[in-house]
């Protein structure tokens, strides 16, 4: 049986004038339905480029992406993206930001009332129902990411693409949101591909961690299975040997074998 989401031999070369830079080289990855995959690597290694290729926002130079037996070559609502920031349209209210996506995906199949209820349902899912009439400028960064997640979930995508979704948040807010995402993943069984540079976050959330080598010509260096039972609780994991081992493996990969040499 072929994988649900298949990245095969993806390469990406950027050309500017006479200069060409190979960012990604022969990246292949098979992801099963319902799996939570993290991609980790130093900044500049091309992991965001990889996510954009899966999203269809950037075309791959070589290779391709197959999702549920269909090739991906343009952005579409079957792959919802939660961006690191600037994720909401500032002139729309929280409700309208989610409703926009709901209308785009379900205008043909669901009635107005159903779409309204579905929008509210997803806002409640991320505990943002109380702020539905606020504008993005009036809510905190964590709340904006919640709304971004609600919008992505509301589209019922085949795969959820998270581009460092918690990167700009403070530690407490980040932990809250990570717990929310874990709960949602547990109850809805979404397939999730997440970019991160946070080792603890990757180990806590993922079924598998994909470690990228440093660019240029970044490749998949190693894939680590995280065999921790779910539901996972961050406090209990602190002393869990499997957790610590996984954490150590990722840290070793990042800081010994693929140390970031250039000044960040």
């Amino acid at each position, binding site marked *: 049986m072929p994988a649900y989401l298949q990245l095969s031999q993806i390469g990406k070369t950027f050309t500017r004038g006479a200069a060409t830079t190979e960012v990604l080289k022969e990246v292949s990855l098979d992801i099963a339905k319902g799996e939570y995959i993290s991609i980790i690597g130093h900044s500049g290694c091309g992991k965001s480029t990889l996510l954009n290729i899966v999203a269809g926002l950037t075309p791959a130079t070589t290779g391709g992406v197959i999702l549920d037996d269909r090739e991906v070559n343009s952005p579409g609502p079957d792959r919802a993206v939660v961006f690191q920031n600037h994720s*909401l349209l*500032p*002139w729309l209210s929280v409700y309208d930001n989610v409703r926009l996506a709901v209308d785009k995906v379900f205008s043909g199949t669901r009635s107005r009332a159903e779409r309204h209820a579905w929008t509210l349902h997803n806002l409640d899912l991320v505990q943002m129902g109380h702020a539905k009439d606020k504008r993005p400028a009036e809510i905190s960064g964590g709340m904006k990411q919640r709304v971004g997640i609600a919008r992505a979930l509301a589209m019922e995508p085949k795969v959820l693409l998270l581009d460092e979704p918690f990167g700009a948040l403070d530690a407490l807010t980040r932990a809250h949101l990570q717990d929310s995402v874990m709960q949602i993943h547990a109850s809805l069984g979404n397939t999730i591909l997440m970019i991160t540079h946070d080792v603890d976050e990757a180990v806590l959330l993922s079924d598998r961690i994909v470690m990228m080598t440093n660019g240029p010509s970044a490749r998949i260096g190693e894939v680590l299975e995280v065999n921790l039972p779910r539901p996972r609780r961050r406090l209990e994991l602190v002393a869990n040997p499997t957790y610590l081992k996984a954490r150590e493996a990722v840290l070793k990969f990042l800081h010994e074998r693929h140390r970031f040499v250039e000044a960040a």
Partner: protein
Amino acid sequence: MSATAETLYARPRAAGRPAVSPLAVSGLLWLGAAALTHGVPDRNTGITDIAYTPQLAALQAGLGGALLAAGLLGGRLGRPGAALRRAGPWFALIAVLLAAWELLTAKLAVLPLPFFAPPQGLLEVYLDDWARLGLSLWHSVKLLAWGYLIGAALGVLTGISIGWWQQASYWIHPVLRFIGPLPATAWLPVAFFAFPSSWSASVFLIALATGFPVTILTWSGIAGVNKDYYDIARTLGASERFLVLKVAVPAALPHIFVGLFMGLGASFAVLVVAEMLGVKAGLGWYLSWAQGWAAYANMYAALLVMAVMCSSLITLLFRLRDRVLSWQKELVRW
């Protein structure tokens, strides 16, 4: 003596509050101005008779009485009362300036008639010639509305086109660079013989003057839209039409409104020139007509109406912007 904190804090506030409300003071000033208008005899220099002095005095007295009453009623007037109170100092200043004007023209003839009309001269124009002034105002507003709305609509469309499509930019941009900076009034002679009527020529000129800033600002607004917004919309499966109408245009609206504001200012200038030189109606026409008859009071009266019209239209535009752009923080208040 033990003074509590409350009285310590309360004292400066109590001292800061004036014993008499500024509104009542301005009421008294208006009454004083009325007394001046009524009590000091006019000095008629013989060229133009000063009329309507009793009416002016009555108007000043009436306003003074009303302000005094409002000042004495104080907080019992609710929200309109509060707005009135804020304007109190301005009422006072205007009363003083009007009295000084009255003194310098009608009473002492320091500023000679007829070049400097006394306040009652303007009152005379409003009472005797209101029909013609009103008609002129109506013609001006109508001409302006046609020209401005056409210019603004075309400007927004052109701006979006060159901001969005390379091809449009290739062909329109050079034309814009060449012709745009030319003042619209420079087209006046050409427009007046190229168009079937001076009215349609003026609509064209006003549209031209409005269209240029609107186009440039719309274009820069579209060009400056955060590219992330497009990515967001594209991941929702947005079509190009959706990207233009639901992302680019709303995101560019702050710029578009700056363009609309600049265009409105430019359209006023062209309106007045066009009416003075070609169109046989409107406030600009009224101005030059009054000048031709040496009816200086009519000129001042028309200028005042024009100022109120322009200011009101700008206010209207800002109100519209505040409504549409309520999502934007820290807007400049008009």
